[in-house]
């Protein structure tokens, strides 16, 4: 039973109850319309999206909590620990706090782009969740080009960032936006190239089929180790986490391109950041770490465990490394990662031609 059938069961049951009520009240026409297959399909898709959003939201909240606790331990302190069990509800309290903040728009800002940038940001981040399956039965869509879809949606974000940085009418925001766009555009290329090796080995762009290919042979981290390293570095740059968080550099640029955003907009941008962190870790798991394969536990749980392990690596990097300079970051991207990704493609082609996988 997959997610669609499960949701359909629940929706049909609910619609049955409402229909019984409507028939009892005498609205037979409305009951008939509500019971028609098209309406049930629509409601099922709606329910499925709500389930997916809820899963993404809970994972993002857990990631923030994980980051606070792990980072605290790395810095020899205890992290959030007052609200809820082990401080888990601290993030929810912070989210509620951002809701209560005043809704400030800078006077000299260009209003329309200023308001639309967070919308594009959070919208595209949530859109990422659509293409990420938790297992072979827990998915929203089964696109043939799912992997390409994920990276296409990733590529929308520089537009939103640049727009937000420009519209705030602030030096630091603009510098942050420019840095961000330059970094995202130059790291997209090694990212896509390191993915090519996996796609060659699996022979498909469908996420499910890539995981199946790993189930039938070995996890692609073994034949594609260089690709994995390149991918991890590039994805850390792509989701703007600490060794590469130049767009947000607190010390030099205040908060980079979101300096001027306050209140719930800031909360949404923060949430979007963690949604993208989740998506990045999930893609790493799906491409290189065998997806939802694992013994004993249910596949969804295995997938989430692996995602949290990859995210732990992100936090570890954040705790132990310092920020690099903007020229260094572009040099690493173009002069180191790009040739390495090319070498990785050659290895993938050799393995495929020799028939080892």
């Amino acid at each position: 039973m997959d997610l669609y059938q499960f949701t359909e069961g629940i929706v049909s049951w609910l619609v049955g109850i409402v229909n019984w009520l409507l028939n009892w009240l005498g609205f037979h026409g409305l009951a008939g319309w509500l019971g028609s297959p098209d309406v049930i399909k629509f409601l099922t898709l709606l329910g499925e999206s709500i389930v997916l959003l809820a899963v993404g939201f809970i994972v993002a909240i857990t990631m923030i909590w994980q980051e606070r606790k792990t980072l605290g331990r790395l810095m020899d302190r205890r992290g959030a620990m007052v609200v809820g069990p082990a401080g888990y509800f601290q993030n929810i309290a912070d989210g509620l706090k951002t809701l209560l903040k005043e809704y400030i728009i800078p006077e000299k800002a260009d209003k329309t782009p200023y308001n639309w940038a967070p919308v594009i940001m959070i919208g595209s981040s949530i859109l990422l969740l659509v293409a990420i399956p938790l297992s072979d039965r827990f998915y929203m869509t089964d696109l043939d080009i799912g992997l390409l879809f994920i990276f296409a949606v990733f590529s929308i974000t520089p537009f939103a960032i640049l727009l937000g940085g420009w519209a705030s009418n602030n030096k630091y925001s603009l510098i942050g936006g420019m840095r961000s766009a330059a970094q995202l555009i130059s790291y997209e290329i090694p990212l896509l190239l390191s993915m090519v090796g996996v796609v060659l080995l699996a022979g498909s762009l469908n996420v499910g089929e890539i995981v199946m290919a790993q189930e039938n042979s070995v996890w692609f981290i073994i034949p594609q180790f260089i690709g994995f390293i390149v991918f991890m570095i590039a994805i850390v740059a792509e989701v703007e986490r600490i060794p590469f968080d130049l767009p947000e550099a607190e010390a030099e640029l205040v908060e980079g391109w979101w300096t001027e955003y306050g209140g719930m907009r800031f909360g949404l941008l923060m949430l979007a950041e963690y949604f993208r962190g989740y998506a990045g870790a999930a893609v790493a798991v799906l491409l290189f770490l065998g997806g939802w394969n694992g013994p004993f536990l249910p596949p969804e749980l295995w997938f989430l465990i692996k995602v949290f392990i990859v995210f732990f690596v992100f936090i570890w990097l954040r705790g132990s490394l310092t920020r690099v300079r903007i020229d260094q970051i572009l040099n690493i991207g173009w002069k180191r990662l790009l040739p390495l990704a090319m070498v990785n493609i050659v290895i993938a082609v050799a393995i495929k031609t020799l028939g080892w996988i």
Partner: protein
Amino acid sequence: MDLDMLFFLIFAFITVAAAVAVIFSKEVVRSLMYLALTFLGVAITFIFLSAEYVAIIQILIYVGAVTVLILFGIMLTKRKLSGGDKCE
């Protein structure tokens, strides 16, 4: 009328309206936003033609790269905001 047809007409209207707005908006950045919307609309049209690959590539290249390139071009040239103050 077919539901597909209805949605196609809605998205086609949005695309054409955005394309017209690119020409008629006073702010350059705003017309760029409409341009991005037009590209997205074209991508949706490709999905209606069941050419999903082309649609995704349309988003990846046009929305992800071409729009950002034009935005760079706009930001690196001097201009004035509608208020009259010079923009950084």
